[in-house]
């Protein structure tokens, strides 16, 4: 099912990757150029961009399921087969994660062109922390998909509000958790954890690796559980009140 959905959304995936990479370049290249060490700043910002990007993707996929797909009866079709927003996101996860890695690789490649650095600098990190960082991105997407599903089942908001919601995801991602007076509060945003793990793999995180690993083992199941509960609530609300097509 994931393969069919990926083929259906192929153009959207390509547009998302290119869009993501070049919009990020517009922000991170000047920000790193204005700092004392551009390459270190690049390593600080790129993980945040990737974390934010997968969180946004989760929000948009949740939005797609609860808003746009309603029009063609696709949401009903999924629900008639006993599936909800959680299952829909699980189907798309492998391709989404792959797209996230492609975004990271392209971001690394394009940013290297500006500073004349190694095009695969993004691969030169601690393998364990990097793997953890990338895999927790799936949890991030599930969490935000569930959240978007719950919000759009509970309220009458139009899908254009997803654009505003994703601005909130910058907390702890583009602006690192360590920049806040109470850094651990930033982990209320699951994408902060993935971003911080990737930063730690490059040696630029404000957190030590051991407490970060401990946090990962505690927070990852928590985020998964919260995302699952939110999507269950979303399913219950649809079953009770139905779902109206809204743009």
């Amino acid at each position, binding site marked *: 099912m994931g393969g069919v959905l990926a083929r259906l959304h192929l153009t959207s995936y*390509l*547009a998302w990757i290119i869009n993501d990479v070049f919009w990020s370049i517009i*922000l991170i*290249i000047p*920000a790193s*150029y204005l700092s004392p060490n551009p390459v270190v700043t690049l390593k600080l910002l790129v993980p945040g961009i990737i974390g934010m990007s997968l969180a946004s993707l989760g929000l948009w996929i949740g939005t797609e399921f609860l808003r746009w797909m309603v029009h063609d009866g696709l949401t009903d079709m999924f629900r008639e087969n006993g599936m909800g927003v959680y299952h829909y996101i699980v189907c798309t996860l492998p391709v989404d994660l792959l797209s996230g890695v492609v975004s990271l690789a392209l971001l690394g490649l394009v940013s290297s062109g500006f500073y004349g650095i190694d095009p695969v600098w993004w691969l030169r990190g601690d393998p364990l922390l990097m793997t953890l960082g990338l895999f927790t991105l799936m949890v991030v997407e599930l969490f935000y998909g569930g959240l978007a599903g719950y919000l759009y089942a509970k309220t009458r908001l*139009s899908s254009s509000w997803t654009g*505003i919601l994703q601005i909130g995801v910058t907390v702890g991602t583009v602006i690192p958790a360590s920049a806040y007076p109470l850094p651990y509060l930033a982990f209320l945003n699951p994408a902060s954890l993935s971003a911080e793990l990737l930063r730690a793999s490059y040696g630029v995180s404000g957190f030590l690796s051991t407490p970060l690993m401990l946090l990962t083992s505690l927070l990852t199941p928590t985020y998964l559980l919260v995302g699952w509960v939110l999507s269950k609530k979303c399913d219950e609300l649809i079953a009770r009140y139905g779902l109206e097509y809204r743009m």
Partner: protein
Amino acid sequence: MSIRGVFTALVYREVVWLKRFIGDYVTIWLLPSIYGLGIVFLPTLMSDIDFVLQRFSNLFNHPMGLTDALALSLSLSAILTVVAVTVGDVVQTLYAEFKVYGSFTIILETVSVTAFVLATSFMRPLIMTVLSTLYLIPALSILLGLTGLYLYFQLLIALTLSSLVLGVLSGITGILIVFYTNVKKPWSVSSTIVPIMLSGAGVYIPIHLVPLVLKTISSVTPVPYTVELIQLIVLKGFSLEVSTPLVIIAMLFTAYYLAAFGISKNVDVRVRKS
């Protein structure tokens, strides 16, 4: 229909759309504001604000305090929203009118394809440039007081000229998508070319840092020249120096207008025959 009727209809439609898509408008005001602020404050994660201001001053060859740096950064952020909104709006309006809403026959009975494409390429950018840059009014007024308001109107002139060129360029892209390809998701084309154009224009960085491929793509659009124009207006006001980017923008407008006229005329003849 009288000119007054057309104007009333346009205002009515934009007010209805503003109410209906208020979430989108808030996003297009918030995102560039965050970009503008982020450019100045994100580097402070690695150093203090004085260092960043020093780099900013060196970058633009002009001594700047925090207020000046923020005013310049926010002013430059307007080019992001204007390019994104103009290109997306013109391409998607043309696609929707010709392929989705089924209004193609009505359009052909009333006007030529050329007139419709050129009118869309002019009107949408004019309206959207004003609406998408409204966030600059409070932002620049807070930073610079009444001077900020005056600066906004100067920037609006520069941005409007640029958006007209972008409008015609997007009109050409729109016609090519609608009549010469089988693209079903036009937004994927418009949303892809926008960040490529912008990242090649060196909006906040020296142009020599930009890779040649991106620089070349961007140089055939008005974006790099508008960036130069905004920098000159914010730092030096409307001086004689603005004439160079203005002349280039005017030349691009002429070239794209002639191309849009030719292509849409060709399409008009072709569709009326078939």
